[in-house]
């Protein structure tokens, strides 16, 4: 095994003789993926399996007057044609609310629309056939008569009295509102020497996973069990929801999640069409498969962002920030998504704005309104890119206004590294952050002074380059405060079970899941290090509700920090069990023994005493030779949940260096830096890949991505040619570095790293573009994505 970057952790608690912590161990699943031997849901084929396709509403809002499926039912290969009304007898509707988001409301959502379609793309009828092609052929024969209703598509007017209320029983189109005031914002603005006020706009995005959503549901009437193969991030959450809405007990449902081709938060939600598949399987008593195609993905995979934030900052001439104010408005779909809700992103914007800074005077309002567009929910770095771009955009506009260097203004306002524990203006609690250390590292890493000199020299030649920054905090390792307290059965804890096999290898069954980020590798590293075996002897098993400890899965950057700690503790517990047996065999005290590289050794001298294979042989095959009363326990389970802090906040700072072609309005990204602090770095390569991948998604937000709707609620660019995901040719080099402040809540000390890149990159690029164009007198650009057209307009050229 080739370890590409080898810097074993200096942390004593983790400094075991054969530690893999802090080392770039290759992913154990890499060969399988590269050889095409992965098992995605698309690869699952079962006897009698049928394929589903959906007839989807072409209208953003329409009454379904009639559905005539007689011709479709006669089409070749068709097994069944099922309407929403028919399926509602098999599966109950749901309402996406959480009790801790006060006032959050939504309407019951069905697996397939009943009587009314509320967005263009909502499933109206299912066709199940021998093949997907035959199902699609038959879909064309389903005759549906619609009566088009007025589509509510503008968040700005959704709450007006004259606007149609999408769900009349709710009274208005307001999903959720949060108002928060802290400190004394009014006095803060009065004390300011300068106030900057602007409106930030964020495009509507979607995650565009390589592998689309996919599910195979198999109701076995004999066993009275539902087995679901699903590309999900949270198998146990889905087990609960499938059972609940099909009227089954949880133990009657097994969710199996093998390889998953990317998630980014897209695959952690309840999708109506996937609920329809489990119901169809139950109805038809046979396996049913559904793989969303790319066109369906664009109109049904959750969308995110789409916020309009009016914002103000007060600042003194000495750079002291005196007050913040934001007014956020976001238009979601016609339903709050189940069970995590569509209120979380706006709630996060309120939580996180101003987060890195000491200024306590803060006034915020966030409103979430229903629209007849595709549903919205949590996508990588939920709320962070918005809150960070708003905060950091204000900070750099304020710095420009008072004529202060933007890094200097940050130095004067960021929470001091020795001031922790501390809290942000919204009241979010920080255990330990390292803003100043990160900033200092970034300053030297990017050669800030040198870049400023280069920038000034190039301006003389008519070349306009910009430097922009974004400090940020990131929510990771969520405790039960995120969802559990709101009544959702989404587990904040996770468990790991490790088992010594009969030859001395180790199996680890764990509740977190893998969608390509390397959770499997990190789990193996923790187990191998804590137990004491070469990593090749650890087999990790994930994604099976029948066979893994109950857990939350992988989201909110929790797999390494929470799952890793459970694996670490389980490995330690198994080590104790094994040295106890070894002690019996060797007639030595267990606490004088250790396990290193798969061998039981004398703890002090490292002298090899007995191989794990021999311990296993005796324990499993010749237990009669052990002393009376000694029973080997060769399985250990440990669970972990963060308790001391609601979230383990990470922090960091990013910088962007770019060039704006002032003739064409095109932006060329030249370089990007990220210094972040995710605590203990378990695998430097995987952490850097997470940072880089996250940055790229953030760069997409800044320059390219946006779901464009017309005023009738039609998505105009729902395909890979027109929805512009960032691609390699346009991406800069992304340099990463780390400050390490472990969380004391776990022994491992790891915080999450999955979303920091996405959190900071958009604001960073915005600031760099404005920095580049400031000498030209261009109006500040705050409306993402920054297309050539918008830049040319800011320059007065169009």
């Amino acid at each position: 095994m080739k370890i590409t970057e080898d810097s074993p952790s200096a942390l004593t608690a983790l400094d075991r003789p054969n530690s893999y912590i802090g080392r770039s161990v290759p992913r154990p699943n890499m060969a399988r993926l590269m050889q095409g031997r992965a098992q995605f849901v698309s690869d699952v084929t079962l006897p009698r399996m049928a394929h589903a396709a959906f007839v989807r509403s072409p209208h953003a809002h329409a009454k379904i007057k009639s559905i005539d499926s007689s011709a479709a039912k006669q089409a070749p290969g068709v097994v069944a044609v099922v309407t929403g009304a028919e399926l509602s007898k098999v599966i109950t509707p749901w309402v996406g609310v959480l009790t801790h988001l006060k006032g959050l409301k939504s309407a019951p959502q069905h697996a397939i629309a009943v009587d009314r379609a509320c967005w263009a793309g909502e499933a109206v009828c299912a066709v199940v056939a021998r093949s997907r092609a035959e199902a699609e052929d038959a879909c064309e024969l389903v005759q549906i008569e619609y009566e088009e209703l007025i589509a509510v598509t503008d968040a700005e007017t959704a709450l007006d009295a004259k606007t149609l209320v999408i769900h009349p029983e709710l009274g208005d189109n307001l999903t959720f509102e949060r108002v928060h005031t802290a400190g004394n914002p009014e006095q803060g603005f009065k004390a300011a020497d300068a106030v900057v006020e602007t409106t930030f706009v964020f495009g509507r995005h979607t995650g565009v996973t390589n592998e689309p959503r996919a599910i195979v549901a198999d109701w076995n009437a004999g066993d009275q069990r539902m087995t679901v193969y699903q590309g999900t991030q949270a198998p146990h959450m889905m087990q609960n929801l499938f059972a609940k809405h099909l009227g089954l007990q949880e133990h009657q449902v097994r969710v199996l999640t093998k390889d998953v081709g990317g998630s980014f938060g897209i695959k952690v939600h309840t999708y109506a069409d996937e609920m329809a598949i489990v119901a169809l399987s139950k109805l038809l008593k046979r396996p049913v498969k559904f793989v969303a195609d790319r066109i369906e993905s664009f109109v049904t995979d959750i969308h995110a962002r789409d916020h309009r934030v009016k914002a103000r900052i007060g600042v003194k001439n000495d750079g002291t920030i005196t007050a913040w104010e934001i007014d956020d408005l976001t238009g979601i779909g016609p339903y709050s998504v189940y069970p995590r809700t569509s209120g979380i992103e706006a709630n996060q914007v309120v939580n996180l704005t101003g987060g890195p800074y000491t200024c306590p005077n803060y006034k915020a309002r966030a409103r979430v309104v229903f629209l007849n567009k595709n549903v919205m929910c949590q996508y990588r770095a939920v709320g962070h890119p918005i809150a960070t771009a708003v905060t950091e955009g204000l900070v750099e506009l304020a710095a420009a206004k008072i004529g202060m260097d933007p890094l200097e203004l940050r130095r004067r306002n960021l929470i001091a590294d020795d001031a922790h524990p501390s809290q942000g203006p919204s009241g979010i609690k920080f255990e330990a952050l390292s803003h100043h250390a990160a900033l200092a590292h970034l300053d030297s890493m990017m050669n800030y002074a040198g870049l400023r000199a280069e920038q000034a020299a190039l301006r003389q030649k008519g070349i306009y380059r910009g430097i922009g920054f974004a400090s940020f905090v990131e929510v990771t390792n969520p405790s039960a405060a995120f969802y559990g307290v709101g009544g959702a059965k989404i587990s904040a804890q996770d468990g790991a079970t490790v088992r010594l096999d009969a030859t001395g290898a180790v199996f680890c069954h764990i509740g977190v899941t893998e969608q390509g980020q390397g959770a499997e590798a990190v789990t193996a590293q923790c187990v191998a290090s804590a137990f004491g075996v070469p990593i090749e002897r650890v087999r990790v098993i994930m994604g099976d509700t029948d066979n893994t400890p109950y857990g939350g899965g992988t989201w909110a950057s929790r797999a390494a920090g929470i799952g890793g700690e459970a694996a670490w503790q389980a490995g330690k517990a198994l080590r104790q069990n094994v040295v106890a047996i070894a002690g019996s065999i060797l007639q030595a005290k267990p606490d004088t023994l250790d396990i290193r590289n798969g061998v039981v050794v004398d703890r002090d001298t490292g002298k090899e005493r007995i191989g794990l294979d021999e311990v296993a042989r005796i324990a499993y095959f010749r237990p009669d030779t052990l002393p009376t009363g000694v029973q080997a326990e060769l399985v250990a389970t440990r669970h972990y949940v963060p308790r001391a802090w609601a979230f383990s906040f990470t922090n960091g700072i990013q910088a962007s260096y770019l060039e704006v072609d002032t003739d064409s309005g095109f932006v060329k990204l030249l370089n990007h830096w990220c210094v972040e602090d995710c605590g203990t770095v378990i695998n430097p390569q995987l952490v850097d890949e997470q940072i880089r991948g996250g940055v790229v998604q953030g760069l997409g937000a800044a320059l390219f991505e946006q779901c464009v709707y017309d005023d009738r609620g039609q998505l105009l660019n729902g395909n890979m040619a027109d929805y512009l995901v960032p691609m390699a040719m346009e991406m800069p080099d992304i340099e990463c570095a780390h400050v390490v402040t472990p969380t004391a809540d776990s022994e491992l000390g790891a915080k999450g790293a999955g979303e920091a890149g996405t959190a900071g990159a958009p604001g960073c690029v915005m600031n760099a573009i404005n920095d580049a164009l400031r000498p030209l007198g261009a109006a500040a650009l705050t409306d993402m994505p920054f297309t050539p057209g918008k830049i040319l307009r800011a320059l007065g050229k169009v």
Partner: protein
Amino acid sequence: MKPAPFAYAKARSLDHAIELLGRDEARLLAGGQSLMATLNMRLSAPKLLIDLNGVAALGGIAVKDGTIEIGALTRHIEAERSADIAKHAPLIALAMPHIGHPAIRNRGTLGGSLAFADPAAELPACLLALNGELEIAGPKGKRTVKAEDFFKGLFETALGPQDVLTAIRVPAATKDTRVGFAEFARRHGDYAMVGLAAAARADGKGLAGLRLAYFGVGATPVRAKKAEAALANGHVDDAVTALASDLDPSADVQADGATKRHLAGVLLRRVAKQLMEPRA
């Protein structure tokens, strides 16, 4: 995204393809880079797909009598790597790297791109700038159509229902030939927001026979004739100003009309520089 059912026939010869085209709702399959996507999205649902890929007569690149002839089935990648095209049709060589991505160029054909006539595609504009012609075979035999007359409207060409585009011909470059090509695309490999293909002959310090063909600005590639006149006289600023009457680009999802018009001017300045430079 599964295509509606269709019959498939592999054409044995050009005549066979033409004969098959006589059947109801038949379409030709060349590289399939646009057609397969439209089939999968059920934007088109022909009853018969006629596969041209085995028809050898549609391939080949030949230079004779001051003309370079390129078979319709020539793949982008062959054109990109062809020494003959680099030497005798340098504008096409310049345009090639801008067409999609390598995977697309490996399969896509020159004839397919021209027959499909996407208004944002590079090759139709190149052919228009080069004053090229297209050879078409139909039930009544072969005929030749000038590029000027080939592109009729949005995805609409002079090809009749039973016609096959067989080859394109452009005048071979001489030492006086000047060409220029530039486009703005949001990402490398995307269809252009606006693009410009240009060809001329050096005439002392000026340019003769200048043809500026814009793409991504209308239903077909568009000649900017007033700008041509101004630029031929060496007046770049006047040429850019003239674009206001030459072009009336409409908005699409990536840019509004005003932005496209501005970018057309930026392209003109850049391409003008290329046109002034002697060929290497």
